[in-house]
């Protein structure tokens, strides 16, 4: 969606319109992925069907347009496609991020009939071994492949998502080929963030810095650093809490799926009360200022810092983010700018 998506995000951000929403209908999941950002306890309370639909009504009335269902595995909820159908009736551009294992031919056909804009399936390897080293669920590779085939057979626009980490190191070559062979869009990531309860365990799975460099350098992976180096120091403000929001299974609203700062609850409050309430205003105010520890960093022009990840990394909303520092070092080297001396976070 590229440049136009950015332009619309900017317009929505200026008017505080929740253009892009991540909506979790459940934290339940039939896989046990080692790097999952959700805490292992999957018993979080969930909005019922009517409450979830009413939440979507509120977001649509506030101007919400792009809607991504994620979780947890949305398909674990028997009423998921009914909720999605309601979202489509409200005019949302609906996409789904799924592990694919529960997407039957019938479910895929219903998604196509509803006009889903995209269905993403996360696959960690073209072979069962690397994939199941991440999902820790025997048989999940075959189930995901079946789901992908059902999605493609239904004529849906399909995306292959992957994270390359220590357990599936080297699998990116085969995944690029897998997506190309099937005409799927591909998104590959190499960064892992701590869990939403700030448990850093998933970060242990991230590849070491020296292994990241060839992946960043591979144009097929599209780990883009277009526009870098930027001039001026990195800033904390982003689309979170302005044109982006996230809704948890129990109706808690976050400014972004990566930034679990509760702004309110959409079951109990109007969207306006949440979006223009004290927590949201305070967050925007704090994120409008400079980054006190990053201002003088020589890597600033290469930094793709995310305030949510910094928060999860325990550095606070405005602190330096070790993963962004690592990424900035890699990008600076790839762009032939060596390794600048100043670096606020040693990793």
């Amino acid at each position, binding site marked *: *969606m590229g440049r*136009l*998506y950015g*332009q*619309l995000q900017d*317009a*929505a951000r200026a*008017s505080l*319109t929740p*253009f892009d929403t991540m909506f979790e209908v459940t934290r339940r999941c039939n896989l046990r992925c080692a790097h999952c950002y959700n805490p292992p306890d999957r018993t979080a309370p969930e909005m019922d069907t009517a409450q979830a639909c009413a939440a979507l009504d509120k977001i649509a009335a506030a*101007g*919400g*347009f*792009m809607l991504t269902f994620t979780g947890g595995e949305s398909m674990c909820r028997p009423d998921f496609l009914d909720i999605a159908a309601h979202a*489509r009736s409200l*005019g*949302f*551009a*609906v*996409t789904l991020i799924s592990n694919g294992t529960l997407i039957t031919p019938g479910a895929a056909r219903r998604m*196509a009939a*509803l*006009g*889903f*804009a*995209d269905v993403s399936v996360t696959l960690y390897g073209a072979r069962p071994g690397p994939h199941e080293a991440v999902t820790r669920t025997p048989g999940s590779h075959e189930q995901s492949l079946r789901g992908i085939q059902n999605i493609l057979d239904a*004529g*849906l*626009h399909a995306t292959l998502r992957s994270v390359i980490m220590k357990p599936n190191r080297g699998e990116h070559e085969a995944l690029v080929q897998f997506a190309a062979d099937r005409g799927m*869009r591909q998104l590959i990531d190499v960064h892992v963030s701590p869990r939403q309860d700030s448990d850093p365990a998933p970060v242990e799975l991230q590849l070491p810095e020296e292994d990241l460099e060839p992946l960043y350098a591979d144009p097929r992976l599209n780990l883009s650093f277009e526009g870098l180096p930027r001039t001026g120091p990195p800033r904390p403000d982003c689309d979170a809490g302005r044109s982006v929001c996230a809704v948890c299974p129990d109706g808690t609203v976050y400014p972004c799926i990566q930034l679990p700062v509760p702004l309110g609850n959409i079951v109990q409050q109007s969207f306006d009360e949440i979006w223009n309430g004290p927590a949201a205003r305070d967050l925007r105010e704090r994120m409008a200022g400079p980054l006190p520890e990053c201002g003088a960093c020589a890597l600033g022009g290469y930094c793709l810092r995310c305030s949510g990840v910094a928060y999860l990394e325990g550095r606070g909303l405005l602190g330096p983010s070790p993963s962004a520092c690592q990424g900035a070092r890699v990008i600076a080297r790839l762009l032939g700018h060596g390794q600048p001396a100043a670096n606020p976070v040693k990793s």
Partner: protein
Amino acid sequence: MTNDSLVVKRNPQVAWRELDGKIMLVTPADAMLHLLNDTGSFLWKQLDAPRAANDLAAALCAEFEVDEDTARGDVREFIQEILGKNMLERA
């Protein structure tokens, strides 16, 4: 070539929303995001029910104070372009 009596309607599979007076759309076949210009956005909003190209041209004349020939030309161009992108269907 678009006929002036052609009746068109929105493709119900297309997601759309108004932002700052302009219509943005996502077409599911290719997951592409589109933004209509002022004229296109006005015409899209007229299509809450199936409408003939002639009727759309008349609405355009009334809204933008353009002459009939210009309005018909604009509507033909609009319909041809977005029919091609499957945002509209023949009713």
